[in-house]
Each structure stands twice: as C-alpha cells, then as structure tokens.
C-alpha cells in the first residue's frame, strides 16, 4: 500500500526538490539580482517571518473567493436547470460561452467597484461569481442534456414525467459534470478574487498587497503572497475532490474498473 503511494508521489517530489535546488543554485551561482528573482530560501524565510500577516490578508481574500464561489455556482446551476429544457438555449450556449470567455471579466472590476464600493467585499464576490458562473452553467447544461439516448428512451417507456426524468436521470447524470465545474471554479475563484483587487480594494487584501509590493520591488513579499494564494486555491480544489469522491463514488469506481 505505502509502496504504491510512494510510487505515485515520488516523481512529483523529486521534480519539486530538483527544481528548487536548481533555482537556488542558479540565483546564488549567477548572482541574480534579488529584485529579478529571489532565491527560494529567501522566499521561505520571508514567508515564515510574515506568516501571520499573510494569513490575515489571505483569509480576507479567501472569504471573497468563497462568497463569489457560492454565489456563482448556485446561480450557474440554477440557470442551467431553468434553461436546459429549451433547445434554443442549448444551441446558443456555444456562441454565448465564447463571448463570455473572451471578455476579460477583470474589465468589469472598475464598474462593479462603482456599484458597491471599492472597499466592499461584495464587489469582489460579484466579479468572482461572474467568472465562475459560465463554466458552471455550461457544464451543468451539458450534464443535463448529454444523457444516454437509451436511458432516456427507457424513461419514456415508463411514461415518466419530465420532472421524474430530471430527478432520476438527468440530475445524477449531471453530477460528475457539476463537480468538474466546481473544480474549475475553485481554482478560478481564488485567482478571480486576487485579480479583482487589482483595480483597488481593501488594504488588507491579497491582490492589493501583491500589487503594492511588486510596485515597490519587494518581490519576496509578493512571492510569499502568491504562494498563499496558490495554497488556498489548491486546498480549495482538493476539498472539492474529496467531496466529489464522497458524493459520487460510483463514478470513480467505474473509471477504476475500466482502467484494468
């Protein structure tokens, strides 16, 4: 058991260690300027020194990300359940997704800041919500509509109503799609929160901190803050994966069985 776990993770650990050693050696060996690229050791030292402050600002932004995640995911799923029944909507999804994907949502940040106030976390939550809304809605619609033709026919043979088909077939069929969307949304929501703070925000927010420190060429501070953002994003992602395994075990078991 532990041997297979080791085999699974060993390459990732080896690569990480090698990369860090090379990085450290390069910075020291070539005497790279501190403001160009700080050494990993310098970042780690900085990270430990500023840990409390980083946790404080990290938590501030995490709350924005979580709020936006919940708003965006709920609305996305709701919109999908309402619209998935209409063929016209389904056909418009593709062009609409493209349009939505190609707008830098960031550009709405100043507008939303104007709506709710720069300091109001709600502004950032709205931006995050908009960012995660589309992937969640699109994936949910796909899950609700891409059902096996035979499975649907079986339901018709039982004279099942649309509501019964929705609950007994479409919804379970959509769950893996929805969880995939949650995973995307988890990563996006932390990025979205940080990025939405680019156009101003509370002083104790991660994005504002990174922008300021980078402007002052204090890159160790910026890197430490970026690491916090990544850790939160990855943790968030892993939590979703754990929930997914608990909620739709059949999906994983089946895929495991197919791999043999």
């Amino acid at each position, binding site marked *: 058991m532990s041997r297979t776990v080791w085999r*699974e993770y*060993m*390459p*990732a650990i*080896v*690569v*990480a260690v090698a990369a860090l050693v090379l990085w450290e050696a390069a910075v020291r060996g070539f005497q790279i300027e501190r*403001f*160009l*690229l700080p050494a990993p050791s310098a970042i780690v030292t900085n990270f430990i020194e500023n840990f409390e402050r980083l946790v404080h600002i990290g938590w501030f932004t995490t709350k924005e990300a979580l709020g936006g995640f919940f708003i965006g995911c709920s609305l996305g799923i709701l919109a999908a359940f309402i619209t998935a029944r209409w063929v*016209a*909507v389904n*056909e*418009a*999804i*593709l*062009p*609409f*997704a*493209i*349009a939505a*994907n*190609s*707008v*830098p949502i*960031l*550009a*709405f940040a*100043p*507008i939303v800041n*104007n*709506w709710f106030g720069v300091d109001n976390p709600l502004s950032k939550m709205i931006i995050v919500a908009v960012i995660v809304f589309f992937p969640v809605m*699109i994936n949910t619609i*796909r899950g609700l509509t*891409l059902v096996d*033709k035979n499975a*649907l*026919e079986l339901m*018709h043979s039982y004279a099942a109503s649309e509501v019964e088909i929705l609950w007994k077939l479409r919804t379970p069929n959509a769950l893996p799609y929805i969880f995939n969307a949650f995973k995307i949304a988890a*990563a996006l929501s*932390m*990025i979205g929160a*940080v*990025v939405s703070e*680019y*156009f101003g925000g509370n002083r104790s927010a991660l*994005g504002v901190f*990174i*922008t300021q420190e*980078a*402007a002052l060429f204090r*890159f160790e501070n*910026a890197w430490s*803050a*970026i690491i916090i*953002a*990544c850790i939160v*994003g*990855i943790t968030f*992602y892993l939590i979703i994966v754990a929930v997914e395994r608990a909620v739709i075990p059949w999906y994983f078991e089946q895929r495991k069985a197919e791999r043999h």
Partner: protein
Amino acid sequence: MTTARRAGTSSSERPSSRLPKPVRQALAFILIIVIIVILWEGLKWFAGDPWRPDNNPFGISHKPMWKLKIASDLNLPHVWTIIEAFGKPSRRNGPPLFEILLAASFFTFREAFMGFLIGGVLGFVLGTIFAHIRFAERGCMPYVVASQTVPILAIAPMVIIWLKAGWVSVAVISAYLTFFPVTINTLRGLKSPPRSAVDLMHSYAASKWAIMWKLRFPSALPYIFVALKISATASVVGAIIGELPSGIRDGLGGAILNFNQYYISGPQRLWATIIASAFVGIFFFVLIALLEKIVLSGRYPETELM
C-alpha cells in the same frame, strides 16, 4: 388509438428545423442578446435615472418608480449610449472611438496571436512528453495544474521585469493562460486510442515514432482543436491582462485602464471597450473553428458541442 396525427412524444426524432445548425445558433445567440437588452433597459425603466427626451432615441420622458444605484446612468449606461459612443470621439477633436478600438483590437490580437503560438507549441510539446514518459507526467502534471491557480496578474510585473515591457512579455503572459488546455487535451488525446489499436501497431512491430504519428497524433487532433479553441479566447484575455501592468497603452488593456480612469465622465466608453474585447475573442475563436473544419471535416465523425 394511436393515430398518425398525434405528434411524437419521444425526443429522439423531433423534426429538426430546416435551418442549418450554425444559423440556428446565431439566431439563438441574437435572441439571448435581445433578451439581455430588454432586461437591461427594463431595469433602467423601473429603477434607473429619469429618461429625458434628449437621452433616448425615442424622445421619451419617464420617471422610474424606484431607484437602484446599480441601474443609474453612471453604473449602467443605456444600450444606445454605448452604441453611440463608438461613433463619437473619445477626446475632443480625436478620431471616433471605434477607430481607436479597432487599432487597439489589432494590436491586442497580434499579441494574443503570438501568445497563442507560444502557448500552443509549448502545450503540445509538454503533452507529448507527458504521454510518452510516465515519470514526467507523474512528476510535472501536478505542477502544471497548480500553475493555473497562480493569479497571472500577480506575476505579470515580474515577467515584465525579466523580459522588458513590450509585446514579448505580453505574449508570454498570454501563453501562460493558453498552454494549459493544450497540454491537458494533447495528453488526453494521445492516450485516447484504445488498447487494441495500440496492440495492433505493436503487432506490426511499429516504433514509438510510428505509433505517435500514425495512431496517437491523428486520434489526438480533435482533442487538440477543442483546446485550441479554448486557448484562442484565453489568449485574448491573457494579452489584455498582460497589458495592464506593462505600461503598454496601444492595446485593449491600455484602453480599459484609460477609460477606467475617465469612467465618471463617460462610462459608456469602458462598456464599448469590453464589447470590442468580446469581438476580438469571438473572431479568434471563429478563425480556429474554421481551421478545424478545414482540417478535420470529412475525416472525423461529428463531435458534440465544444
């Protein structure tokens, strides 16, 4: 009695309308836009700023019964105000806004295209390496995924210091957003041939190289195109974001910064810029979709949406 007249209840054979699918899609898209416009103006009708004969093309005077901050003319300009903005100069005696936005769009598109090329090639190379070397996949894939949790805007200032402000750094930032889908889908596509297809190649004693180009790559092509379409729009977003901290003022990112500064005096210009960005993204997407059609059509079965 089941007579011929009763319409089909089963969804499998609902008579498909005679319009070809892209046309239907375009019509549905327009329908959605129309609905959004109606909702938008409806909100302004009930809760926006007063309608004066000179601020709407219908010459209507109307006092909304409620007042919502987000529906004010500053926060949610009228649709026609935004459309009109394209024709008006953004500075006194300057060229009309659409000329500025057109030039900015070209500029940003060029950066995005370079980023798309860099990211696409990088993504393909990484995906191919991962597909062939198990250690590389296990060792690097987690970090490739983790890389996408890094807020790109946060690293952008550092990239600009490394590579100097200019289109190269913008393209690199854009590539950071575009390589990921290509890596994932190349890997998935190269691994998509079933066991039996690979075994068949082995039975011919085919080399890894031959298996790659005669089996894996052709199987991966549809997957790769799906990723390229995602990357096309992502590269535009990446280029715009890359422009923000780099001080480049000729592109759409510059325009966003600029009109953001003057938001109070003309919110419609920022909205117009957002619309222009969407058009660039759609244009790039359609370009890749056409390429996909030329390369794939007739050789592969029709696929699901996206």
